């Protein structure tokens, strides 16, 4: 990834996919016994299903943002003086 000398944050809308796996924290959606799969209560196999979902989301973000760094964010609010090195 080429590196721009004066950029702060880089943002790609693909990054929003990283929020999807967090949906598995909403326990009322899956805290139930039925339907069962191979004898496993819904509670368990639903959460197992999130493993591939998580991999897919992170994988997509990796592939889609690999070659095209999007530069839209604003740089850190730093003055030139703040960048001085040497002071403790």
């Amino acid at each position: 990834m080429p590196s721009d000398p004066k950029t702060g944050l880089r943002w790609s809308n693909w990054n929003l996919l990283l929020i999807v796996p967090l949906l598995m924290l909403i326990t009322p959606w899956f805290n139930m016994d039925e339907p069962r799969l191979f004898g496993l209560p819904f509670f368990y196999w639903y959460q197992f299903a999130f493993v591939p979902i998580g991999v897919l989301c992170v994988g997509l973000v990796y592939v889609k943002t690999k070659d095209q760094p999007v530069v839209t964010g604003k740089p850190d609010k730093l003055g030139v003086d703040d960048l001085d090195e040497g002071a403790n």
Partner: protein
Amino acid sequence: MQWTELIVFSVLFLLVTVMGFVAARWQQGATLDHLDEWGLGGRKFGSWITWFLVGGDLYTAYTFVAVPALMFGAGALGFYALPYTVILYPIVFLPLVRMWSVSRVHGYVTPADFVKGRYGSHWLALIIAITGIVATMPYIALQLVGLEAVLRSMGLNGSGILGHLPLFIAFVILALYTYQSGLRAPALIAFVKDILIYVVILVAIIYLPSKFGGWSHIFGTAQAKFDATPSKADGILLTGTNQLQYATLALGSALALFLYPHSLTGILASRGRNVIKRNMVALPAYSLVLGLLALLGFVAVSAGTKPIVNQATGRPDTNTIVPELFGHNFPSWFAGVAFAAIGIGALVPAAIMSIAAANLWTRNVYKEYIKKHATPAEEAKQAKLASLVVKFGAVAFIVFVDPQFSIDLQLIGGVMILQTLPAVAIALYTRWFHVWGLVAGWVAGMGYGMWLLYTIGNPAVGKQHFAGSALPLGNISILGWHPFGGSTTQIYVGIVALFVNLLVAVIVTLIAKRARVFNGTDQTDPSDYHVDEDNPRVKPVAAH
């Protein structure tokens, strides 16, 4: 004494011992007398090595023993380990590559190095370093609990100090090859550990459920067991009061994991940003294994497994559930393989944790306060000695103090390390927080978190303090006012403490900015956070 198991275990243990010593010459750098080499393996690990190393580091023997034990004892709540390790990677995906880049440009070895560079405050760096060391120590001790659980299952269950002798021998060997080879030793051994773990879990998860009548029957017997207990909090599903605890425990644990210095060690040792990103995609393979393993807690219920009584403490130790399940239901040679998988699984993280703690000591205490102009060779020497001290400290903890104390401390450690989130993780993105805001937030979050943990008791096991991390919302009071009334809904203490930490940090930051208090000097440049391995700005490895 179970001789077959013991022999298989010893052979595999011997194999990794040899590997540990040979590792010093594996992918050898110019010198081992530099923290980049001893403490970070030359900063050049590729995707595969990183996958095995970080996997071997995060999914520890204690995890493999404690998670099924929690399922066995408490039911569905123990399954939080799965959501924890699924949401972990999406959360840390972006911050970790920033951490890698800025560390690579400036030669940072520890998270506290970064904090010092970002805020120019060695005091803030010091509290981050001490938090890291204190939180890691009981974690190392817990690896010993995992190792000892298998040793005792193999019949090495002596009483008194002598009962700890096998553990002591195993740790002396570990200490010696870590001293010699540094991070390369656990990196190489992690290959053996992870392959053994995968084989054992896959066999266990295919063979054991069918042996005990299939999953339907297993969940049936587990349900029956929990119905029979007086406690209303257990069961094969979550209850009304522990759902919030389940979600916040998973979230808090995920936020905390890469704040632990040993997790970051594995990341900083990797070659480049893409190595880290690929690993964030591939590491959930271990989560799948962990989830399957958790279910073995219910299989143990079906199999009628009984925890063995620890001769040293005289109490039944639920951490022996999985070793006992394997020992009674596998042919003895395979049980030996399974024990070796757990035993070696303790060595890898214990080595990495001791290296990470040693790095913190050397970089942020020794070099900062004791010997300011230490040469790289002196730093490496100091770190090697510190790793020995850390490991023998952990052994002493297990031998001379009740192991329960380590478990309590690890619980506290998770809450503690979470309090470094604003200074380490948020600082990767912004310097909005004032250095005094971060210090004040740390003090508030730490103090409040410790106090909350102190107030949590569990009459069922006869403990009045530090009996868990589940806090009833009704217990939260602000100067006598209970915002949640008498609610019994539980929440993870770490999240509450982090909230208080952030609140105080924001308030103090606003005041400090109003008063125009000097906010330290930032040595990093915004572009530092995007530098990759091929960039000329990366600092040469092992140079000063």
